[in-house]
């Protein structure tokens, strides 16, 4: 399983390095969403700055969906994904490889967007809470990718994958999104404690990675 995951991960990274589609699109989209928020809500007031974390994760939710969509759109193009079915590989390994690739893309997007976000919302990470921000990003991206990779495979089989992917998986990510916003808020100093939320994120990640590993084969086969 790990070997398969490694090969699939390598392949997705190679493609991304060559095209920079996923990260590029996600990055631009995130900035766009933040700009729109700024005009729609006049985000430069102190109240709004308290909500900064929320804006960040909303932008992330939408741009992340784009990146995830692409993950399996690639496989459908000229049937490459079929090869993953007739090759002697296990579905769980394929899931793991794609999942890891998606986590990486999402993390990179977050890191690139962070400076812009800090500038736009005039916010900053509290001195000794950098670990919280890192943990928040990693756990949030992981949870998102765990469910998103599975649902991306599911939606890629349909006629309307761009519509169906967000419709199917955003509701399921609600707990993770709430927790991610709360933990990032904590890192930015807007709230005082977030231990429950960190724990929830960990549980969420573990549960959905496990379920996806077990169920992924049904999404791949004919």
């Amino acid at each position, binding site marked *: 399983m790990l070997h398969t995951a490694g090969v699939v991960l390598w*392949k997705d990274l190679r493609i991304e390095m060559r095209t920079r589609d996923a990260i590029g699109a996600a990055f631009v989209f995130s900035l766009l969403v933040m700009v729109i928020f700024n005009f729609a809500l006049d985000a430069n007031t102190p109240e709004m700055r308290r909500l900064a974390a929320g804006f960040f994760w909303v932008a992330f939710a939408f741009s992340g969906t784009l990146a995830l969509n692409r993950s399996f759109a*690639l496989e459908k193009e*000229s*049937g*490459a994904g079929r090869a993953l079915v007739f*090759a002697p*590989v296990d579905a769980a390994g394929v899931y793991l490889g794609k999942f890891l690739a998606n986590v990486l893309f999402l993390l990179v997007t977050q890191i690139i967007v962070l400076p812009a976000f800090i500038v736009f919302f005039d916010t900053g990470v509290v001195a000794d809470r950098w670990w919280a921000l890192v943990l928040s990003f990693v756990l949030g991206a992981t949870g998102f990718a765990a469910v998103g990779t599975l649902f991306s495979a599911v939606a890629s089989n349909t006629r309307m994958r761009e519509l169906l992917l967000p419709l199917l998986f955003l509701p399921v990510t609600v707990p993770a999104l709430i927790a991610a916003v709360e933990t990032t808020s904590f890192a930015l100093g807007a709230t005082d404690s977030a231990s429950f939320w960190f724990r929830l994120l960990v549980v969420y990640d573990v549960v959905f990675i496990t379920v996806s590993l077990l169920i992924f084969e049904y999404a791949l*086969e004919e």
Partner: protein
Amino acid sequence: MSEAPVALACRGLTKRYGRVTALRSVDLEVPAGACVALFGRNGAGKTTLLHVAGSLIGSYEGSAEIFGRRVKHGDVEHRRLVGVVLHDTCLYLDLSVIDNLRFFARLYRVPDAEARVRELLAQFDLEARALSVVRELSRGMKQRLSLARAVVHRPRLLLLDEPYTGLDELSSRSLSSLLEKFVRDGGTVLMSTHDVERAFDNATRAVILEQGSITFDRSTAEIDTPTFRHAYWNVLFTGHAPARAGV
């Protein structure tokens, strides 16, 4: 002859999609070293048969065995013995030619991956465009690459779904000679096609599938091309089984 291993053995193979039956109790034995050409109208079940043999279809009734191993959901080892060429090229358009081959070589755990990739680039005349992205290749080159991809792991059985469709004369000949070499080196081929000429270049057996059942299965040594073509056109245009010329 009875000792020769059987590459593909289907007994009573039936595949239903709801109440539509794509394959009806198909009995087909493809011995190792054979080259079987599968003919039939669109929708006769050729693709379904190839997909079952290629492990693309998870559930079916009856039995299908590759070199004695049952084709089963979850059992992956027999897939190592099979190479598949479909309608789609099954290539990553944004990767280069060489990266595609590397990917499949590693996926199939080919022991000498890098060397094998170089070997295939030479054998399939792809060296000149090795670093080009697949999106930029012509159809003929994509087909060649697809075939290279299918044999990267040195399979013993090659399944091809209408490989000659859309190929020009040069590419067709090239494919023919590649298949000939494959069979000469001990491989087995099962391909579906409409191209009687090309098929008879290589095939040792011709099989016609109609509405999920085999209605014609004879060695190509016994019939000549024109006779077969006539019989096959009968099937295509009238939907009737060919005259039972000693079947």
